[in-house]
């Protein structure tokens, strides 16, 4: 059973389009992190959201934490080929600085 479900699992879009990736859980998390992983590399942390309802922006990427802290979304405006990669959300377990990772969304942006 995956604690963090991401949707869609795969997404292929044209350059310049907008997209939204979702991370959902039935559990409440104190925070959620978003990572991007490019092929052949390890995940790289993009952002951590901590407060329910929080919105953070990173250039063309907008991250939102749900009011109930059970879900999060990542919106990309005017996608570029460099945005291609696997997007992962991660939420902390109760102890030991361990994280549950989501099922992942594989994004391909076609030039």
């Amino acid at each position, binding site marked *: 059973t995956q604690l963090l479900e991401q949707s869609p699992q795969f997404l292929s879009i044209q350059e310049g389009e907008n997209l939204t990736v979702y991370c959902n859980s039935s559990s409440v998390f104190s925070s959620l992190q978003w990572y991007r992983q490019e092929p052949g590399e*390890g*995940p790289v*942390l993009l952002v951590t959201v901590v407060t329910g309802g929080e919105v953070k922006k990173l250039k063309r990427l907008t991250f939102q934490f749900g009011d109930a802290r059970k879900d999060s979304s990542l919106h990309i405006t005017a996608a570029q080929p460099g945005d291609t990669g696997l997007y992962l959300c991660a939420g902390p377990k109760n102890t030991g*600085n361990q994280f549950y*990772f989501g*099922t992942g969304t594989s994004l391909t942006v076609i030039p």
Partner: protein
Amino acid sequence: EAEVAQSPRYKITEKSQAVAFWCDPISGHATLYWYRQILGQGPELLVQFQDESVVDDSQLPKDRFSAERLKGVDSTLKIQPAELGDSAMYLCASSPGTGVNQPQHFGDGTRLSIL
């Protein structure tokens, strides 16, 4: 290039053979993690170290997998004997401490293929 160093980048071996992966975390990072990642999925934790001590190895298949971090710095993950189902990316990550929102820094992984 990742600050967490892993080697080798790629490993191809036959089933029943022994394989070993090495990780050198960011200097000063007390916490070290080994993850296994199936292609296109999220990483799954195998083992967590705090300095030289194992904090959690509940998901490590101990009949064939072992991990050590003898001096609390670099770490080795071993599989013996390897099975076909072990083919995956093995990622190492480190973080400064044990706080809940401590960021994890990942290496570029070792891609293991079992023939």
